């Protein structure tokens, strides 16, 4: 057993931190918040240059073939700087769905282009019912002579407005269980009958869309994987993306703790740095505990996912349940300990507080994942 990062992984962390410190400053993030697109083309091209966009894809599809523990390191660093843009939606949702379920031809068509930054992808999965389980999929896919006709409304879709291709989750048949009859389809941007609307969001660094599908016709070759067999690969994709998101949340929470600790050392009240007072110290200690525990569970889940360990689904749900609460609490306490300045638009804390909130609801909140844990430990 060795539950720590390797030297190579620590080097990756150092490189990533340096790169993001230069390229993803608060000024950059705030500029992206005001714009519809989460990234600039220039920044995206640099991510590709760093090899991040293909990090977890096999070499035959233009990737580097690294694992989720490696990715964890990167995601933590991205979380530290509240990196905006479609990394999760492209690399971990749309792209990963193509990798998990796609045919050789589909993988060859999309993955190398994603890795080089030429193409962006997204996953149109959740709906207005806001469910994260298979029963939430109600969009329909009807077979016709010309192919398949997709109808339905997808909501909370990450970065659909900048995606070149959407992986749409729809029901081809009513299965015996909610998981049966779910299929995945590749829908290119601008498909006839598909409208994408960017939604105003509390966390402006995460772009959420509504995707309306009104009799969108795609060819039979647009099916990703087997018809009716879309749920198992989708579940794997979500599981993996969830681990990565947890790591991003850990990185953000750690940064809030760092900022708060530094502030507590220099801010003077009643003639002393506020960090001298136990009222502040104890809150800071609680923050550290939350951050460290979230990391422990996240690293464990990343390892389990990499190894395809039987406990992977349980480990992922434990991590997401914990990280969802932890990031929210830590970012809120960070604001509290900063006092008035923490409540301003000028200070960066609100970026983290809002990212904590959006991350909490992405791929299932703590309540959802605790119920999953209850099921998985056979309660």
């Amino acid at each position: 057993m060795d539950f720590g990062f390797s030297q190579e992984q620590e080097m990756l962390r150092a490189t990533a931190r340096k790169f993001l410190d230069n390229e993803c400053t608060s000024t950059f993030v705030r500029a992206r918040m005001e714009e519809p697109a989460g990234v600039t083309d220039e920044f995206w091209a640099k991510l590709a240059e760093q090899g991040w966009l293909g990090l977890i894809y096999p070499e035959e599809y233009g990737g580097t073939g690294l694992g989720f523990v490696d990715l964890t390191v990167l995601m933590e660093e991205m979380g530290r700087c509240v990196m905006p843009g479609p990394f999760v939606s492209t690399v971990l949702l749309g792209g990963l769905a193509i990798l998990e379920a796609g045919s050789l031809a589909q993988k060859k068509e999309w993955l190398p282009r994603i890795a080089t930054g030429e193409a962006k992808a997204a996953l149109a999965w959740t709906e207005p019912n806001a469910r994260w389980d298979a029963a939430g999929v109600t969009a329909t896919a009807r077979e016709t002579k010309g192919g398949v006709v997709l109808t339905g409304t997808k909501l909370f879709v990450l970065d659909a407005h900048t995606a070149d291709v959407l992986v749409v989750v729809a029901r081809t048949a009513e299965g015996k269980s909610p998981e049966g009859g779910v299929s995945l389809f590749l829908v290119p941007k601008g498909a006839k009958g598909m409208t994408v609307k960017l939604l105003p969001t509390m966390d402006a660094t995460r772009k959420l869309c509504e995707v309306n599908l009104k009799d969108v016709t795609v060819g039979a070759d647009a099916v990703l994987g087997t018809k009716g067999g879309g749920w198992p690969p989708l579940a794997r994709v979500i599981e993996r993306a969830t681990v990565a998101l947890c790591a991003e949340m850990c990185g953000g929470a750690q940064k809030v703790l760092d900022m708060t600790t530094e502030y507590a050392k220099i801010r003077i009240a009643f003639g002393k740095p506020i960090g001298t007072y136990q009222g502040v110290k104890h809150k800071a200690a609680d923050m550290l505990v939350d951050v460290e525990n979230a990391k422990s569970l996240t690293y464990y889940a990343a390892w389990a996912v990499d190894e395809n360990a039987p406990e992977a689904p349980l480990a992922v749900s434990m991590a997401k349940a914990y990280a969802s609460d932890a990031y929210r609490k830590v970012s809120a306490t960070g604001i509290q300990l900063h006092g008035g300045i923490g409540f301003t638009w000028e200070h960066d804390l609100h970026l983290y507080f809002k990212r904590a909130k959006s991350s909490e609801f992405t791929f299932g909140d703590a309540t959802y994942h605790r119920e999953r844990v209850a099921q998985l430990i056979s309660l």
Partner: protein
Amino acid sequence: MDFSLTSEQQAFRQTVRAWLKENIPHEWKHLGSSEIPRLEAYELLREWQRKLYDAGFIGLTWPKEYGGRGLTFMEELILHEEMALAKAPPILNVLGVGMAGPTIIAYGTEAQKKRYPSKILSCEEIWCQGYSEPNAGSDLASLQTRAVKDGDHWVLNGQKVWTSFAQVAHWMMLLARTDPQAPRHKGITYFLLDMKLPGVVVKPLRQITGEAEFNEVFLDNVRVHESEVLGGVNNGWQVGITTLMYERLTLGFGLQMRLRIAFDSLIELARRMEKHGRVITKDPLWRQKLAQLWIDTECLRVTGARAITKLLRGEMPGAEASTGKMVWVETHQRLQELAMELEGSYGQLAKGSEWAVEGGVWQHSFLRSRANSIEGGTTEIQKNIIAERLLGLPKD
């Protein structure tokens, strides 16, 4: 990063598992309580520890020449995991194995290292800890027990308090002030005190549970030979801090094991109990609470693994080791409170009532758990330590 075990470690797990299956005493009925040994079970637990010693399943990380096995923390971890799964009885000489032994091995003279550790493991000699005093608890460095040199002996006078196991202990790890002129932390010496020496008086203290597990210990002109100083005169603070570090690490495994046993027992209870006409494990709100408890229990295990990794790599454990005690306390106290909430009105009934759930064991462990956030460093002190040592916030 790799959580898997080597084939040797897997084989070790199988050996432990098979041995536990054959050897856990039939009289041992594990019920709810996850706490340190109760007085009524001392004899059974003494024999149990002896059995573990004879089989070589205690003191795994201690050097062979001092009665240990010379294995790594991995084997220690595996052993504790298996003991939890098998609901094995706890270690009686828990302070000896968790604190006194490792400290003696770290600081002792060769004679001391030959004399004490193996008898700690075999439970021939039980140890207690003489740190706290009526006026020195969280502020341990203000301790007032005095030791004055007289020939080749030290003469001890003072009082210790909250001393668990003192009524059965053969030895005490004792901190006393040997240089009152020196700065508080510099004038303290660590003694190995023979509890049978004239002038040592143990008076049981009745506690919140109604039992008298812990004691006051009075020292009246107790003459301790200078060979019983551990780690040098006036070096006791350093030695004592080491003890506390071992306490966090090794006792941590044991605590983790007891927590897992308590969790499993709580789930068994929840499966049998109903609320509002519904089995508790089917109630959505209870499923949330129990799942969170599981997550926190697992989190302690995984965080422990991070600390062990650092040890195995030859590094000092950092944040992940310091948070363990605090997180364990919070989780365990919540578990005990959930047990009470789960019992509902029955939560009021104690041992002796035929209506009491599982003979009232949960009432006992619930009450006992209040001490968790006080003993071994209060939660408030733990938070100060984390804030000052790990986060670098200024001292007052």
